């Protein structure tokens, strides 16, 4: 009670501000079930605003949900609980917005056991001394599908790629020939392995410097499977230089499997799959060391690269090795193009594994993404024309936010 009197004394003695009007609570579309959208008309004379929330009923007890904000604020997205594992959301919430004048004290900053009591006292003093809106009720609703047009289109696109892939795979199984254009960069990989065998030197493989979950690293691991099998068949050596420890572990398994599939499991030396450093430039220095000291005959850089791309490729150029690079990282493509013999650009990186394996099921999957690409290009042309004529229909159709 003493606290209540103290806070009441701290609060302004006269009601200088008026309450906000039109406070409303809405459940956002396709919500996670933890968010409510509030909007109101800000009063002209409030210095600041504070939002109170209750999960019991319109009589309270009230807690400070957010604020204080400047008095002009007119909307807020309220997160009803920050950790739903500990505090699951209630079925309903009630809100009141309090207008504060210049002299109103900010919410108390007490810790531990006193915090709840101090907050209760503060809120009681606020409601007793400052103008507040009536309580309005909101009900959080959790959705099981983001059904906005943008999300549905994206989902349809992914399902189409998957569906077309299975369809083409089925056709391939039934004996339909699948055409894949010649890609000199990928053909050069096999030539490079042959060259390494002739020279009695290893092939250097760098799977980029990104984490395992990056799709370029995943593609690179799939390619490494094919390449290590060919290296084993040629009875040559492969050195894999890794920047991320978990990528090394996977590369170790993949190269081991490649040697096993080729029928030479004993020829595999796990010490050739090396973790260098997780620091970008330390990794670059270490890999340059391999290039200059072990002098591999062929360098294959496939994956996600950043500033190290040119340093690696230029060092490789000095070594006079055959260099094949591939990345979907547009900023690094010019460097690879300048310093390597062959460069796989963007999507070509994702086609290597299918191309090398010559497995009709994998080749057919390339066809599926080509069909979807045609669809995307048509949409781009139609959308550009529509936008040029002032229609925002297509832009809204593809907008993804939530």
């Amino acid at each position: 009670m003493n606290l209540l009197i103290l806070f009441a004394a701290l609060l302004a003695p006269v009601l200088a501000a008026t309450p906000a009007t039109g406070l409303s609570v809405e459940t956002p579309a396709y919500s996670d079930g933890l968010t409510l959208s509030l909007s109101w008309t800000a009063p002209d004379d409030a210095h600041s605003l504070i939002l109170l929330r209750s999960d019991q009923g319109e009589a309270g007890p009230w807690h400070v949900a957010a604020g204080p904000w400047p008095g002009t604020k007119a909307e807020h997205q309220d997160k009803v609980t920050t950790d739903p594992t500990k505090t699951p959301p209630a079925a309903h919430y009630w809100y009141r917005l309090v207008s504060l004048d210049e002299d109103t004290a900010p919410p108390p900053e007490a810790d531990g056991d006193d915090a709840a009591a101090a907050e209760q006292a503060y809120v009681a003093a606020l409601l007793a001394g400052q103008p507040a809106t009536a309580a309005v009720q909101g009900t959080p609703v959790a959705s099981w599908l983001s059904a906005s047009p943008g999300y549905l289109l994206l989902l349809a696109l992914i399902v189409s790629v998957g569906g077309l892939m299975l369809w083409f795979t089925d056709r391939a199984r039934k004996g339909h020939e699948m055409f894949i254009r010649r890609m000199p960069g990928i053909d050069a990989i096999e030539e490079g392995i042959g060259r390494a065998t002739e020279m009695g030197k290893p092939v250097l493989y760098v799977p980029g410097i990104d984490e395992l979950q990056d799709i370029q690293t995943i593609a690179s691991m799939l390619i490494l499977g094919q390449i290590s099998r060919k290296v084993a068949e040629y009875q040559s050596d492969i050195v894999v230089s890794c920047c991320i420890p978990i990528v090394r572990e996977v590369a170790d398994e993949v190269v081991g499997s490649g040697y096993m599939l080729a029928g030479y499991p004993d020829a595999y030396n796990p010490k050739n799959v090396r973790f260098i450093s997780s620091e970008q430039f330390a990794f670059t220095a270490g890999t340059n060391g391999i290039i200059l000291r072990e002098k591999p005959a062929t360098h294959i850089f496939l994956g996600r690269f950043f500033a190290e791309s040119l340093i690696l490729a230029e060092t490789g150029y000095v070594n006079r090795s055959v260099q094949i690079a591939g990345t979907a990282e547009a900023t690094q493509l010019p460097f690879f193009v300048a310093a390597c013999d062959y460069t796989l650009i963007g999507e070509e990186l994702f086609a290597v594994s299918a191309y090398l394996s010559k497995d009709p099921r994998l080749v057919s999957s390339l066809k599926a993404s080509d069909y979807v690409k045609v669809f995307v290009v048509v949409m781009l042309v139609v959308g550009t024309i529509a936008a040029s004529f002032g229609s925002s229909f297509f832009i809204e159709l593809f907008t993804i936010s939530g």
Partner: protein
Amino acid sequence: MKRTVPLILTFLVGLFMVGEYFIPHYRYRIWTAEFLEWGVILAAAAFVLGLINLIQVNLPKVLKRERDWGYKLVMLIALAVTLVAGFTAGEHRDGPSVYKWVYDYTFVPLNATMFALLAFYIASAAFRAFKARNLEAALLLGAAIIVMVARVPAGESLPVIGDYLPRFMNWIMDVPNIAARRAIFIGAALGAVATGLRVILGLERSHLGAD
């Protein structure tokens, strides 16, 4: 069995994580967040394996005095010093410590030196590769020179053309450059979706080895 179990696991986990983008429900998000945390923990645990690999590869070469053993010894000493300094510095490293010394006086200059090498390498790569061998290459060369001149104050200060150069550069960067990048980006994104689906649907098995 050695192939089937990973294929089923890949399919289930892959599908579940794709769902995260389309299912906003908080109960679903609790589980996906849990999976993501497992991912972070796994990646962190692999650092120990990385350390073991570094020692396995380099220590025997030092002990047997193989070729270039001196470099490997320097690397192992640097590794040990940094590791001990990092552990002894504690969790909050604002104050002076051996770790901070190592950071300030070895890591910072070495890191900056490696990055600065780019300036030298780009000069030699550009000199070697940037030749107007045909019309397309000549156009590319012209665009590159305009962008390079316009990016520096000296270009903007040129008489007569100084005012137009930055505008032309912006046009090159905003129109042809963006068009090409978007094309690469869209192609790569579709390729990425196809690769992801190939793995999730079990069409791609080259990484799994034999049964």
